[in-house]
């Protein structure tokens, strides 16, 4: 049997072994592609399932590799007339098959967004590289471990080890020039590949340990290349088409008011793509010398942030409800998504002395078509930005302002006899909030009769009333016991489906939200 025939023979065995898991994999990818075409509505469960495809694919590869392990002395294959490199190649081919399936699903899904060929290629390449990296990582880790639990532990150790090493060495590493770092990353990757081949050929436990150590070094070197502030994309010079930048909203005003509104702005060259700003970390240095990070993430409690608001220049704003004041997703269908967060001096002694420096540690911006279509794994174009520093001084002793923003969005498809809508109310400061929605005639349609104390809430306006179908929803009545002047500028507009209002106590505002005829 020739070497190539052995590879095919082994691959056939792998596919036979993993046939049910592969079917599931294909089904989920098909589901993701169908979702990109509108199947299944807007449920976020699709995104979660798609993201889970990454560890699922990694587990498939790990399982296949460990079934013919190069480090287990009771393995079946070494005593058979099988070429070690053919065995390794068959595992690689299995990973390639998985990647090909995922990329095919991504390409199909991308078609739903009418993206250009260039965008398709870029997204496909991005997805392919991302997935290939994870698959390669899974293959190497599985080769040096004897069981799936050990594989998982090794993966966790690798991640933690990489973070720890980066934490201790990043100042030194980031001062290394890119001309050194890139060849270093390539060289260390090559060494890992050589070690894995040698491991299959010699099956020496010492080689497994050396491979693990080298993998850690490679992970560190590769991570430095992608996370170093010196290499991060700048707002004005987007990398891979998207970037994230940090700005101060209006430094002069803020200085006078002693408020600090930090703006995170994600941009894409392509204004037809939807963007999601998933999370970001802003490092704050105060006049008192305190340092802390403000996590801009739905999974964190924000102690230093009193408000988060979002605006998009032209697209629909979707603010998903989450336990924290920060929405799960901030999505725009335009090329820019901007989110501001207000640091609250009155809430935190740490920053009462004034903020002297802001540093965007990192942020993740995802281009939605890629996210939606290819979740297998390719979060698509991820932009990391850092190194944007601002100096802030002369902050006045003034408490934060109060204000209210209301956003209304139709969630159901246009032209349907009924609809679902969402109202999002954002409140600055910890003030009680009443919101009433009424129709054109002034009839109260929906009342948010609970008193919301906090910064934001969202309510689903349920359908069922036909009056909503064709008539305009006119009246929004909001009140706050604290009389303060309108404080927020427009947070953006979203065509016919969104208005953002200045708030004035007990004022009413016409809202031409759902007036589009069927």
């Amino acid at each position, binding site marked *: 049997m020739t070497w190539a025939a052995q590879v095919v*023979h082994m691959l056939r065995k792998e596919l*036979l072994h993993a046939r049910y898991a592969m079917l599931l994999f294909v089904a989920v990818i098909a589901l993701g592609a169908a979702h990109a075409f509108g199947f299944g509505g807007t449920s976020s469960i699709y995104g979660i399932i798609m993201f889970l495809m990454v560890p699922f694919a990694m587990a498939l590869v790990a399982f296949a590799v460990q079934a013919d392990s190069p480090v287990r002395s*009771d393995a079946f294959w070494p005593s058979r007339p099988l070429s070690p490199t053919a065995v390794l190649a068959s595992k690689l081919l299995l990973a390639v098959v998985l990647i090909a399936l995922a990329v095919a699903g991504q390409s199909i899904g991308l078609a739903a967004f009418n993206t250009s060929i260039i965008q398709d290629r870029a997204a496909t390449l991005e997805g392919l590289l991302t997935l290939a990296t994870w698959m390669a990582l899974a293959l190497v880790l599985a080769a040096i471990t004897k069981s799936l639990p050990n594989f998982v532990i090794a993966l966790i150790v690798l991640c933690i080890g990489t973070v720890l090493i980066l934490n201790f060495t990043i100042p030194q590493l980031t001062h290394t020039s890119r001309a050194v770092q890139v060849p270093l990353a390539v060289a260390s990757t090559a060494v890992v590949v050589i070690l894995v081949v040698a491991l299959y050929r010699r099956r020496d436990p010492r080689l497994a340990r050396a491979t693990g150590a080298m993998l850690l070094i490679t992970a560190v070197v590769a991570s430095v290349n992608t996370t170093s502030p010196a290499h991060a994309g700048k707002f004005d010079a987007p990398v891979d088409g998207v970037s994230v930048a940090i700005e101060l909203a209006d430094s002069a005003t803020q200085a006078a008011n002693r408020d600090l509104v930090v703006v995170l702005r994600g941009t894409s060259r392509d204004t037809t793509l939807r963007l999601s700003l998933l999370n970001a970390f802003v490092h704050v240095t105060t006049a008192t010398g305190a340092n802390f990070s403000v996590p801009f993430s739905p999974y964190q409690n924000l102690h230093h942030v009193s408000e988060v608001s979002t605006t998009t220049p032209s697209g629909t704003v979707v603010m998903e409800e989450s336990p924290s004041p920060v929405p799960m997703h901030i999505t725009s269908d335009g090329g820019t998504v901007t989110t501001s967060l207000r640091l609250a001096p009155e809430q935190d002694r740490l920053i009462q002395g004034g903020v002297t420096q802001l540093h965007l540690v990192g942020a993740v911006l995802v281009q939605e078509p890629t996210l939606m279509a290819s979740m297998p794994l390719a979060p698509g174009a991820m932009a990391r930005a850092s190194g944007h520093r601002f100096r802030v001084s002369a902050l006045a002793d003034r408490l934060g302002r109060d204000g209210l923003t209301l956003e209304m969005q139709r969630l159901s498809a246009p032209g349907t006899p009924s609809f679902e809508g969402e109202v999002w109310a954002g409140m600055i400061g910890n003030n009680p909030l009443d919101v009433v929605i009424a129709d054109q005639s002034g009839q109260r349609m929906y009342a948010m009769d609970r008193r919301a104390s906090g910064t934001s809430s969202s309510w689903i306006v349920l359908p069922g009333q036909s009056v909503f179908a064709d008539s305009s929803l006119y009246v929004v009545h909001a009140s706050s016991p604290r009389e303060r002047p309108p404080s927020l500028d427009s947070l953006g507009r979203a065509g016919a489906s969104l208005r953002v209002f200045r708030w004035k106590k007990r004022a009413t505002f016409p809202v031409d939200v759902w007036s589009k005829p069927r």
Partner: protein
Amino acid sequence: MSVIEVRHVTYSYGRVQALRDVDFTVPEGAFYALVGPNGSGKTTLLQLLGGMRRAQVGSLSIFGTDVASLSLEQRGQIGYLAEGQSLPGWMRLEQLEAFLAPLYPSWDAALAHDLRERFDLDPQRTIGTLSRGQHMKAALLCTLAPRPKLLIMDEPFTGMDALVKDELVRGLLETSGSEGWTVLLCSHDIGELEALADWVAFLAAGRLELSESMESLQARYRHVTLVSPDPDGLRALAGSHEYLSVDRSGGHATFIAPAVHGDLAASLRQEFPAATHVEVRNATLKELFVALARRSSGARGAKGVAA
């Protein structure tokens, strides 16, 4: 011609030396038994020969080629079977046979079928659902069906019932004899080995204590039984370094004595004049194994005391 050559092989698991300067050869057509107490390094040695591990010091060659450099064709002529070797548990037996057959030009489907019948194995059964004994039989089937020129087997009788074991032993004897197979086998079942082996090697604490033909080994040692009405008449046995595995109970003693030129019984009567009964016969492999193991552990114990 030697099928296997092991030259000064040393292997360590960290600080623990499993094999120390092991050196022996297995002649073509030999049925070579590797015996030794637990932890003596037998399995490690067979794993080195089976390609599961690589020697750290020394060299191992099969068919005149270094084990690490064996061609696929040569590997196809080696059958390796080990207790605890993991077969693909998700496969059905027939799938496993179908997977292995193309790898071996010499795969004998008729023999596979015959062994399956003899071992009463269901080809539709998934390997993972087989009992320990059935698993071993399936592994044996996969090892024998390619009709290998060299069989390396580590505890092949584990989990097998007496009937199948007997059949297997007879089958192995017949086949290896008729087809000229070379067999290297290690087993705790010394009784079975005695029926099979024509060569024997003894490993203790990673060292090869002896490696010679069974005929030569049995010619070198005799099993002796002495009976004396006066227990003191046998007291000299207690401190003897010449005799192995001495068991003395009152006036009755058994031991392994090195064969001497001439009449061993007569020389023993001279040495132990009080003995009323002297019986000398060929030592069994089991008796030799026990004697050598005791001597080996005694020597290590003595070293430990000296240290």
